């Protein structure tokens, strides 16, 4: 029985739900219960109370640490929520996972969150309760981790407000989170903020001091002045946090109301049928576009105005709106990028920059075309033009990896290294230097050639085993959970949520001014 595209996608979505559930489950039922028994809230419970009723919360990097020895989610929740009508970057330690201790993935996840706050000019709200660094992996945390505090104070210098709500431990290095924040709220009889706890102090100086006098909320509110507000309890801290944000006087760059818009012309649910279970089969990205962009309506006569439809047909380019906001779209159609596609993309990116229009890249590419004809035709030059345009474009970029994202195609289509403002992956995606079978085949050819050059017999049985092993390993490493675990995207998403997520991103982007690029690197012609 053949599996339909929908069945294949639904199975992958069920896996995604299961992985997300691991992140939500934190340190497991036992630790969750213990935390609750102390009258404390979990990070997502704190966030739910912090954000405006009924507003959206876009969780970022929920699968961070997937495939590592650490709990999925990396003991911290990050995301974008609306607080008192202000889009904020929220981070919240998960104290049910090893006391909220930071591991290498935690640090990477928070770095990514800080980058998003910086690029989009968002206030940061840190919901702090962390036992500090995971000591066994301190070597991977300690030196790079200093950036956490540097980022906070640099955000402040950029007038991007930072607010710390301290619910529990925030000690040693962690003490600098409230220390570097513009506003600090501490929960009475819960927050503990000190450089050294009682044992360390006794070791260092012989002084006998208790938790409360070293770093209690009350002490910091009345004596040290580190706490600006003393909260009665967790709810009160969140209430105060909301009042702080309400008084930040934040304004977005948008000066006119968002124009009215309608839902897509085609049924969004149909996205589940579109993506072939086998990525070797191409699919028409226009069918995706019509399911994620605003439908046609007065003021938006056509949902998608395609640019240069007759030229470079394996890349679709054109203009549309998402939730009333203009966007330029580049979407792979037939997988391969030829010279024409690269040149078309280069021109389109420049046009978007001329018009200050953000860009959306929809990946399904196996890379730039190889072969003598194409090399001689200047495929490197043309690919370089596209990468040049992508790299130096200054309008915000959004990327969604729908299917394949192989080779330099990943670069040209604005992969992670090209710093799109946001990058999300569908469960159907795969990204690697090349396809697993191709990679294994290349390795085999190279090895065979080396043996033969030395006049040695080639071990065919060993070759088959090697190819299978490499293929399986590359296959695994090019899958979305793995990539997301490595923080190579901002999350794996249900295709049906794409429109909503892009709409949130486009709204978030409006918090920082942008103008199209005035100059690029040298275009080799």
């Amino acid at each position, binding site marked *: 029985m053949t599996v339909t595209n929908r069945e294949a996608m639904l199975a992958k979505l069920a896996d995604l739900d299961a992985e997300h559930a691991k*992140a939500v489950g934190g340190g497991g039922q036992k630790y969750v219960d213990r935390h609750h028994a102390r009258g404390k809230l979990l990070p997502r419970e704190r966030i739910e*109370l912090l954000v405006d009723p*009924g507003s*959206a919360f876009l*969780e970022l990097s929920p699968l961070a640490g997937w495939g590592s020895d650490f709990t999925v989610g990396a003991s911290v929740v990050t995301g974008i929520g609306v607080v008192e*009508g202000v889009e904020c970057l929220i981070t919240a330690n998960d104290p049910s996972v090893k006391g909220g201790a930071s591991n290498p993935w935690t640090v990477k996840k928070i770095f990514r969150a800080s980058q998003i706050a910086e690029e989009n000019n968002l206030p940061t709200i840190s919901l702090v309760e962390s036992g500090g660094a995971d000591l066994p992996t301190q070597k991977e945390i300690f030196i790079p981790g200093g950036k956490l505090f540097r980022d906070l104070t640099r955000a402040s210098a950029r007038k991007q407000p930072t607010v710390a709500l301290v619910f529990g431990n925030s000690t040693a290095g962690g003490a600098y989170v409230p220390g570097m924040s513009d506003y600090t709220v501490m929960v009475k009889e819960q927050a503990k903020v000190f450089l050294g706890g009682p044992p360390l102090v006794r070791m260092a100086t012989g002084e006998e001091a208790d938790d409360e006098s070293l770093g209690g909320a009350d002490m910091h509110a009345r004596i040290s002045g580190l706490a600006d507000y003393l909260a009665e309890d967790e709810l009160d801290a969140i209430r105060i946090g909301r009042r702080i944000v309400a008084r930040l006087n934040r304004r977005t760059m948008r000066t006119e109301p968002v124009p009215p*818009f309608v839902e897509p012309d085609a049924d969004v649910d149909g996205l589940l049928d579109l993506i072939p279970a086998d990525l070797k089969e191409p699919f028409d990205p226009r069918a995706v576009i019509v399911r994620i962009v605003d439908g046609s309506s007065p003021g938006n006569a056509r949902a998608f105005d395609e640019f240069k439809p007759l030229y470079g047909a394996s890349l679709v380019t054109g203009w549309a709106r998402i939730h009333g906001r203009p966007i330029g779209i580049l979407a792979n159609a037939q997988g391969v990028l030829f010279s024409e596609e690269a040149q078309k993309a280069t021109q389109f990116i420049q046009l978007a920059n001329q018009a200050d229009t953000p860009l959306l890249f929809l990946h399904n590419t196996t890379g730039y075309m190889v072969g003598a004809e194409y090399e001689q035709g200047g495929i490197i030059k043309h690919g370089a033009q596209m990468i040049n345009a992508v790299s130096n474009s200054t309008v915000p970029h959004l990327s969604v990896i729908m299917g394949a994202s192989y080779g330099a195609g990943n670069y040209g289509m604005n992969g992670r290294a090209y710093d799109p403002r946001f990058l999300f992956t569908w469960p159907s995606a795969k990204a690697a230097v090349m396809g697993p079978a191709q990679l294994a085949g290349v390795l085999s050819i190279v090895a065979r050639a080396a043996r033969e050059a030395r006049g040695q017999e080639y071990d065919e049985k060993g070759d088959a085993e090697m190819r299978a092993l490499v293929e399986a390993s590359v296959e695994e490493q090019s899958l979305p959970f793995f990539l997301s675990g490595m923080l190579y995207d901002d999350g794996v998403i*249900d295709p049906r949520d794409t429109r909503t997520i892009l709409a949130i991103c486009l709204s978030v982007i409006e918090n920082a001014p942008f103008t199209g690029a005035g100059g690029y690197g040298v275009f080799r012609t």
Partner: protein
Amino acid sequence: MTTPIRRLLVANRGEIARRVFATCRRLGIETVAVHSDADAAMPFVGEADVAVRLPGDAPSETYLRSDLILDAARRTGADAVHPGYGFLSENAEFARAVVDAGLVWVGPAPESIEAMGSKIRAKELMRAAGIPVLEAPASPATADLPLIVKASAGGGGRGMRVVRDLDRLDDEIAAARAEADSAFGDGTVFLERYVERGRHVEVQVVGHPDGILVLGERDCSIQRRHQKVVEESPAPRLPERTRASLHEAARAVAAAIDYRGAGTVEFLYDAGADRFFFLEMNTRLQVEHPVTELVHGVDLVELQLTVAEGRSPDPRTIGETYGHAIEVRLYAEDPAADWQPQSGLLTMVDVPGVDGRFDLLNRPGLRLDSGVESGSEVSTHYDALLAKLVAWAPTREQAARRLAAALRGARLHGLVTNRDLLVGILGDPAFAAGEVSTAFLDDHPVRTPAPDPDACVAAALALAEHDRSTRTVQQGVPVAWRNVVSQAQITRFSGSSAQVGGRAPAQADDPVEVAWYGGRDGYVVHGLVVRATSPTGVTLERDGVATTYDVQVTGDRVDVDAPSGHVALTVVPRFTDPADAVSSGSLLAPMPGTVVGVAVTKGDHVAAGDPVLVLEAMKMQHTVSAPHAGTVTDLTVRPGDQVAAGEVLALVEEKQ
């Protein structure tokens, strides 16, 4: 001699003022309103051609001030005064003053008012005219029980006490006397035999130069605390012979005092014995006049004006007698809390399907006489009557059904009303059988419908839609969208016992909690299919049955109207500022310091501003004073104590 009325002043307020203005508009008569300060924004004020302010709020400063009202008439050039009901409507002195000022008095002669004003005198008069009256035993014995003590100048149930125990007689007389004295300025009371399950049947008469018009009777038996709540015409289960005798008796009463104008002769009807007794005559238009108007096709206000102008009614202004009409009085009162009158903002008054307002209706239907509109403020100064809703239909059964449906569908938000009680009465089998009596509500405790539990779900979702509509960013994003779902959204409501369908919840203080999910596929609520949502309406499907709820969100208040009734809910805020949570009357330390003096001890009475204790901080003394008059119920500190800022030092409980 006829005196045409050109400009009429209505010395009244609320729905009756609007009622008189409506007829004036139809007849081309100009209108003048007078109003207290509290009523300045009421609809009747804006509907008059001109309005005159009576400074103050209390009736004694405003609607009972005949001097101010006559001055208003003079200043506005009014040539006639209509007193409405209540206030000065049965005040002979006022009637006389109006006439003396050269104005037309729309009411009976002052002498007629006086003759009927004293119930004792009126009874004597009727006894002489051969009309049966309830006799009081000269020396009451146990066999005469029960008895009723009534105020001679009374009305509206005040100064009225039922006596079932002879030992209580003197006490009840004294109590009635005190009540009557304070209510009417006349402590005269009298004793009557009390008919336990009597019916209150009254006959509408209009005396005019050429005779007396009898416009049928009304049954007004269903009362709460001696105040009518349901009235109808004709009276049900009344033998035709008795009906005719009642009409004749009423005619005789009016004739005995040569009555002019609209009046009502009230009888107590003992259905068991098929006997009736004269109670009193009301020399004014009655609250319940619309039922007569609809059944008899007459405009009683028009007839009043005609007679006041010195004319007899044109027979063409009197229609045919047809069908049955029932009126209910909608009060802003809480039947579950001892009928306590309610005051505040009525955020919504809407009765769908009304065919006319203050109108005779040219075919059977629904009539609304309302003194308020959406947004009206109900003050504590006056009667809590909001509106009268009247159904007129070919039969009594049809009228009752129509009226009950209209009441159920009405949207009345902001205040607790007696609506559910009225719906309950109209649906009661005893009512349907016409078994009405003044003891109806005691004999048939009305069961109000259980509130629909899904109404809270509807409220939560409408509230979420309301929040969505007020977003400033991410406007088009689905409500409560999450890419990683960790928990349900929780909306909490509290509803006072009376507000949740008039019944106390199991635990009065427990908030109702609604758990729901938002997101890509819309709202998800366990056990329900959410079919449609908007800030003003939600359709929910349970077990294949869809119900639509109308919702109004006003600040933190949510009103839900469902087919099963109305539920008023208050959103429980997610957060409370601990500073607000401190019990009122707590004295908090304004800053950290040392208590250097305590001026009171526990149990002391203090006046507002009295010093309670003195704190020393930063080398300065700070006096902490009582925020209001009351009793010191708690004192937690002593001289020498160190206190922290915000610490509770003492509690002064406010004097009630």
